[in-house]
């Protein structure tokens, strides 16, 4: 009887917590949900929409060639804040070239004096496997952040990359809500 008195409050607390987690954090089947009659939108946009890297404008890569840096704006066009959480890439053409190109991705933010945060540095080819990253900050609805992508060919690259050409589709994934808890996308 005494045990039952002790166990009962524990049981009630456990049940309440379980129900709270299960009910509140289950994603719906679609990317939208209804809250108090208002449709909440989860969405983001990239700018520019044209390819960032173009050899006709940027020139060709060769060992020790100048680094090519491009900015990609990630804008929150939804109603809930988000953080950047993943990069993926799909390659076409002479994909061996991706092994000979180094890549650095910084999130530089938009605020005055904002300190850049390194999200990824390594070969371009590694992005094919997908990289989980921790975005610098929560991007509020209507706000944006800037990814600074730099690509270069190290001086140590050899002749095996001469004349190769490839294209890369680079995917940016963000997650809602913007909680930095170390979990994946």
């Amino acid at each position, binding site marked *: *009887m005494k045990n*039952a008195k002790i*166990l*009962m409050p*524990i*049981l009630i607390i456990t*049940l309440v*917590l*379980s*129900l*709270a*987690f*299960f009910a509140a*954090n289950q*994603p719906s089947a679609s990317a939208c949900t209804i809250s108090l009659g208002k449709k909440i939108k*989860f969405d*983001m*946009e*990239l700018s520019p929409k044209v*390819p*960032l*890297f*173009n*050899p006709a404008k940027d*020139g*060709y*890569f*060769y*060992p*020790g*060639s100048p680094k090519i840096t491009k900015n*990609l704006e990630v804008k929150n066009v*939804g109603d809930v804040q*988000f953080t950047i959480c*993943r990069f*993926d890439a799909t390659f076409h053409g002479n994909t061996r*070239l*991706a092994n000979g*190109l180094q890549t650095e991705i910084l999130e530089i933010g938009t605020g005055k004096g904002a300190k850049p945060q390194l999200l990824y540095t390594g070969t*371009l080819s590694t992005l094919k496997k997908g990289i989980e990253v921790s975005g610098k900050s929560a991007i509020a609805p209507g706000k944006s952040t800037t990814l600074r992508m730099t*690509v270069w*060919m190290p*001086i140590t690259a050899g002749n095996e990359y*001469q*004349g*190769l*050409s*490839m*294209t*890369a*589709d*680079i*995917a*940016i*994934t*963000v*997650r*809602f809500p913007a*909680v930095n808890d170390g979990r994946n*996308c």
Partner: protein
Amino acid sequence: MNKKILASMMVVGLLGLALGWGTFSYFSSTQTSTSNTFTAGLLSMSAVTRSFSCPSTWAPGDSFTATWSLTNTGTIDIKYLAVDIHDYTSGADLANVIEVTEFKEWIPGYGWINNLGVDQHYQTLVGNGDNTLTLKELMQSYIPGTEPLAAGGVWDEFGNRVNHVTDWITGYGYDIVPPGTPAIKVGGTYELLLTFKFMTTAGNDYQGATATMDISFMGIQDLSQAP
């Protein structure tokens, strides 16, 4: 009885908590920047065109001019041009009585480099310093010494054992060109010009003698790749 019910409910509650935590997730959205193109340059040169022949009546006091030219047929500038003379022979030491009176390189977009001019400092850096550059000195090295070396020195990228890794690189070292000027820009044609004079001091020992040499040209983008 109550204990059993409570224990069962506790298990159900814990399972619920575990399930709730395990399925905890976020919404996500993905957008893609498409068709980003990366292209590596192509470093390519046309075959070397040689334009000369040694006169069959070449005798002491006579001169003739030889030229070699090559075109950058790639997609990027050749920043430096490494040149190496190797596999040379000189019957009766003929090369030692042939004076190089002209030694120029045509840099497309820039003009002639006079390698025997004061600006290039060849007079003090090349050969034995007696102000006469012989073909033998040219074949051996631009650094005083005897090449090819039987031992010691360093191996260059042409596979020769030499005194110095930067024997002859256009756009660097002895050659003075404006900073940033490539040795051979895309589509440009480089030319090497040498004028040989059979020294008047040469005697009958050299009649019918022959000297031969191979010249290799290598385009490079960085001095770390230099021979």
